[in-house]
């Protein structure tokens, strides 16, 4: 189970990082969502991975599932959910105002200029 959870965190982090480096708003937001999934699973596993143990409130139990990371994950999920919503709204407003979904740089500058000039000119204001 450790390998499964660890590699899941690793794969999600790697995919999230790759998407963030795309530097267009939609992939970046999806990438950040993946990163927050990864961090949520990571937080969850920070209380050790246990199966079938009771929560902390029980007499005579030898071991228990740590309830604190679950509370932390819940907080983190709520916050990242709200943050992603705000990010989507602001990114959408920026796209509608600027007619460009690039996060970094200005139209006509950047690594993929040539391709974007072709498909971007038609919609340029």
């Amino acid at each position, binding site marked *: 189970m450790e390998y499964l959870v660890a590699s899941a965190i690793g794969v999600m982090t790697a995919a999230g990082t790759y998407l*963030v480096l795309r530097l267009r708003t939609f992939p970046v937001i999806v990438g*950040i969502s993946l*990163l927050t999934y990864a*961090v949520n699973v990571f937080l969850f596993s920070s209380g*050790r991975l246990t199966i079938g143990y009771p929560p902390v409130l029980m*007499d005579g139990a030898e071991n228990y599932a740590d309830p604190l990371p679950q509370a932390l994950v819940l907080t983190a999920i709520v916050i990242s959910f709200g943050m992603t919503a705000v*990010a989507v709204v602001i*990114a959408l407003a*920026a796209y509608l105002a*600027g007619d460009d979904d690039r996060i970094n740089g200005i139209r006509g500058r950047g690594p993929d200029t040539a391709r974007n000039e072709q498909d971007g000119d038609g919609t340029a204001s």
Partner: protein
Amino acid sequence: MSHWITLPVVLPALVAAVIILLARYHVQIQRVLSVASSVALVVICAGLAWRASDGTVDVYTLGNWAAPFGIVLVADRLSTYMTLLLALLTLPVVLYAIGARWDERGRHLHALFQLQVMGVMGAFLTGDAFNLFVFFEILLIASYGLMVHAGGRARLRAGTQYVLYNLLGSTLFLFALGTIYAETGTLNMADLAGRIAAIPPGEDAGIRVAAVLLLMVFALKGAIAPLQFWLPGSYANAPGPVAAFFAIMTKVGAYAIIRAYTLFFPPYLDVTQGLHTVWLMPVALASIVIGMVGVLGAKRLDRLVAFSVVGSMGMVASAIAVFTETGIAAALYYIAHSTFATGLLFLTVDLVKRGLRHDDLSLNPRGPIPSEAAVAGLFFAGAIAMAGLPPLSGFIGKLLVLDASYASPLVWWVWAVVLGSSLVAVIGFSRAGSAVFWKSHELTGEAADHAAPATDPDDRPTRLELVSVGLLLAALVAITAAAGPMLRYMETTAAALMNPAPYIEAVMSSTGKDLSGGYDDTDPDTEEAE
């Protein structure tokens, strides 16, 4: 246990809610509430600082749960000093936003201001690492709204970058906290101090990773190189009063570094070896250099000021990186100076922007602006403070940083960079000032007919605007005049930080509910809570 500690967090939260729910369409009521709350916060924070000034560490256990189990708010010298600083910055900024009618150019400015104050106050007061994260998120989500206040293409684009950058920072913060919890099993800062110190040397790989991750997160908030990329764009494009208010946001990062790396990752532990001298000091010096290169290279007045903020955060970080009592004391003094100087400069830039009646702040002569003498005077004073020339507090601050750096192995690097950067800052600011304020008169001489519309009385700064900017200048003069007593206070604060035993003792001996009362599964309280 004093309930007053909760007020700096609760009061702005309530005022923000009242503004949104009841005074949504009444700007006047919003203004009254916002100013009243800001004034009350100055009084409350001054009272808390007074209470803490004799070394008392006030601990408030939220929900009456004893310390390692529940969240605590802690008011010691450092926390109350930072909250007072925030309150003193908030009042002029709110007054300016009213005077310049920024609150009429978009909705909810005052509510967002109050929410942000709540977040920053909470970050300063909390004694729990995860709670620090939550307050960081509160201040960030309010700052996202403030950042794009009044809209506009450039501002929205800069806002998107700012939001996404900070979302990544939050993710990193959570990774750091998860690692800390996995290694120690607690997130209470005072409890962490004991548990991290007790980790045996062979098993400290995880906690070392956490120490580095946490430093990266705080460096990102504090805009310390190489994580400063978000700052110039966002500060330059944010509305004037918002940029001035953001002056405290970078200081939250500096505060968190001071708090975390004196309390639970102190410099004498094995896990933090090399963190300060090998990493923090060079990157601090690098941010001074980057800031000053930016000041020289900036083509717009607002970007120039934003880059000078990067430089001044580098100064703060280089003073912190020494990690001696003198170093921390110098950093604390410089934090106050940098907050007021940044606020002053951003508000003055906003006055210039208004006077020019367009957003193009490129450093070309554009014709004279109304009430130029006052605005130029304020810019001159702000530039003197930021560049670190006598007689204002920047000079004293840099002197303290230089003096403290003797304890660092990189002392000559610090001297070279700080003195060189001061020279560069003088050149950069005088170039900008003469382009905007002096050369514009030469332009008028050539084309006198273009000067007529510029003296429109509507564009003159109102009295309230000048007063609020003047308040920040007065604060700078005050911390210069009172540098002696203030520095003595900073030194006692730093001494208390370097010896955190009373703080830990106060937190860990707090009374309240804990798990000792038994935890059988038929406990009625627990079932009701479910």
